[in-house]
């Protein structure tokens, strides 16, 4: 599981950790029953407060994404269906961010949709007019 945290990101740190777990599920690098890193190891490697990791794991458990097994650690819940729940959820999150980014630039949904189709279709590829806002 690869996680990169950023304070410049609009999302709180624990939400960034939750999203990283979800995106691992969607990409298939995390599967049901897989163990997640311990709170100690993950907080050490991310250099965050262990409470932040616990908070992310607890919220994921409430959402049914992971299971905390006492004395054993945290695991991806056996019943998780990444395709049915996590993919649309993650897509909505990415869409929300894209819309916010568009709005900041004075663009609306229609502009975004048009541009997405053009970029996806290769119509604007490589001519420098593709803006990714970063």
């Amino acid at each position, binding site marked *: 599981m690869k996680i990169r*945290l950023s*304070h*410049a990101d*609009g999302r*709180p*740190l624990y939400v960034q950790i939750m999203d990283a777990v979800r995106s691992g599920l969607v990409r298939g690098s995390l599967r049901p029953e897989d163990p997640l890193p311990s*709170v*100690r190891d993950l*907080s*050490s*490697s*991310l*250099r*965050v*407060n*262990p*409470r*932040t990791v616990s908070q992310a794991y607890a919220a994921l458990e409430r959402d049914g994404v992971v299971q905390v097994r006492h004395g054993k650690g945290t695991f991806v819940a056996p019943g998780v269906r990444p395709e049915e729940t996590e993919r649309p959820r993650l897509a909505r999150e990415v869409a929300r961010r894209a819309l*916010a980014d568009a*709005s*900041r630039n*004075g663009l609306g949904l229609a502009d975004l949709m048009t541009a997405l189709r053009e970029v996806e279709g290769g119509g604007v590829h490589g001519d420098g007019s593709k803006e990714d806002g970063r």
Partner: protein
Amino acid sequence: MTNRAAALPIDLGNGPFAVSTRGLARRFGSTRALDGLDLQVPEGAVYVLVGPNGAGKTTLIRTLMGLVRYQAGTVSVLGRDPADRGAEVRAGIGYVPEDYRVGYAWMTVGRLLEHQAVYNPSWDAEYARELRARYAIDPGRKCHALSKGQSRRVQLVLALAHRPPLLLLDEPTDGLDHVVRDDTLSILSEHLADSPTTVVISTHRVYEVESLVDHVGVLSEGRLLGQLPRDELYGGLLRYWADVPEGWRGPGELAGWVVKRSHAARGIEWTVWGDRNAVTRELSQAGAEVREVVPLSVDEAAVALLSGREAT
């Protein structure tokens, strides 16, 4: 238009607090180093004390250690008053001082660490060895021959290895290079996962410890401008970018406290402490088109609060 009553909160409620002060005051000559300070550090918190040089951070920490006498107010550190039970209080604290000197000049670092093991009943010798190895500390080196960074590393080992209930860290990352600073943050994360500890970190480089922090106190001229959980700061102190009509006069009233404002011809960038939905609505009703609302990092929040203060 601004509502000063909506300034940042300072009261964290009923505790339990590992450290608390009420009306704490200390002068040096005519300088008020601490000016009626009400500090509240909840048990188990990682509390960062932010403020410019001269704000009173070091005086405050030295007062909590019982190294500086206070002149008014009350102080409780781990349930005791450091003014009359200083030795007991200090036994429960891991302290990284602002000063770099460690031990006696002639003493080797190895000898210094052995010394702690003898005099400190809660000294965890195995943990001390592990930390010494991670920090690549040479036990044969004399204390007087340590560089700033080496000295800081030894001080961190001394502070952590007895697993005290309270850590008081005064500029703990000062003098450390990037790699050692990152190692220190990892060590602190693991330490917090392993031992129940309250931590007070004083620094003017908040971004370095930002990810560890869960409580923030902003100190200026011996007083707190705000003291609150990090998540509350993150949710309540926001930067609003909006497009506004030419000659815009602003909303008549705003359900928040404008900490900082900047205005270009047809755009504003306001930093406001208040309810996000209410502020957005009132800006919109006044004719502004709100483009973006973003939370501030602790560092940016401190800068906004401190510079906002200078402007008023």
